[in-house]
């Protein structure tokens, strides 16, 4: 049985968190999910989105060069079909609501457990 590969772009200015999300995305519950690129700021995220056309994006909000909210707005036009999970430490309610209004499909608060990230990615892929 062939498995459809679905492409994931990871955007985070922390290398540790890019690595962690990439490792957890290989969990068996996320079968078919494949990391096609990572980016450490909003500008690089848009370049990688245009190049790889990912199906899913995990995205931090506090980043150098281009902040998350601006990046999110551009990604919505570059990748209108992609589903975006915001993964951020910004814990106020207004930030989460704004992200959802800008077109994010989910919001996961840092710090998160392995189970929480896998669960959020499962929901994104459902």
């Amino acid at each position, binding site marked *: 049985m062939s498995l459809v590969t679905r492409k994931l772009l990871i955007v985070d*200015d*922390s*290398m*540790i*968190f890019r*690595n*962690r999300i990439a*490792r957890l995305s290989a969990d068996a519950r996320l079968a078919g999910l494949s990391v096609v690129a990572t980016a450490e700021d909003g500008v690089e995220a848009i370049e990688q989105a245009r190049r790889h056309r990912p199906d899913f994006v995990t995205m931090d909000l*506090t*980043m*150098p060069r281009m902040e998350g909210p601006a990046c999110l707005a551009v990604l919505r036009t570059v990748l209108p079909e992609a589903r975006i999970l915001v993964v*951020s*430490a*910004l*814990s*106020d*309610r*207004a*930030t989460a609501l704004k992200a959802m209004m800008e077109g994010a499909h989910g919001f996961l608060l*840092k*710090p*998160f*457990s392995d189970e929480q990230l896998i669960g959020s990615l499962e929901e994104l892929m459902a």
Partner: protein
Amino acid sequence: MKGARLRAEDIRVFSDAAGAFFLQTTRRRATVRTAYLLESPDPVVWDDFQGLIELAGRYRGSVGFSAPRNMLSHLLLMMGERDYSEASHRDIVGEIANQMSGYARRHFGEGMLIAPPKVLTRGQPAPRADEMAPFAIPMNWERYEAHLVVRMQPGA
């Protein structure tokens, strides 16, 4: 003293942030001890690494998390990271400061703007911080001691 404008409940949110980070990330609790006001506003780089978040918007100042190298190595191990380079230590200390600052926004609101983290190392001069005397919040996790250093007051 300008730094004393932070109230007990303001300080408590940073203590809660520290506790939440270690419990959620490692499933092991940190012991967060009583905060104290430092006498001097002079910049200090604590421990081997310090992640520093500068604040803007409705507040100004900074939030720093400083920790010894061994503590950060242990954290990297528990997070499943295999890279124990200098870059990884700098990355994780900055990210911890970022997450603790982000946690505090649930108390201070979206008007507390948070810059991407800067990382300082022991012996490196820290940025000058006006006359704001910082609060230090000591904490222990496993056998290590770290400090959250908060300089914060309402912005212009």
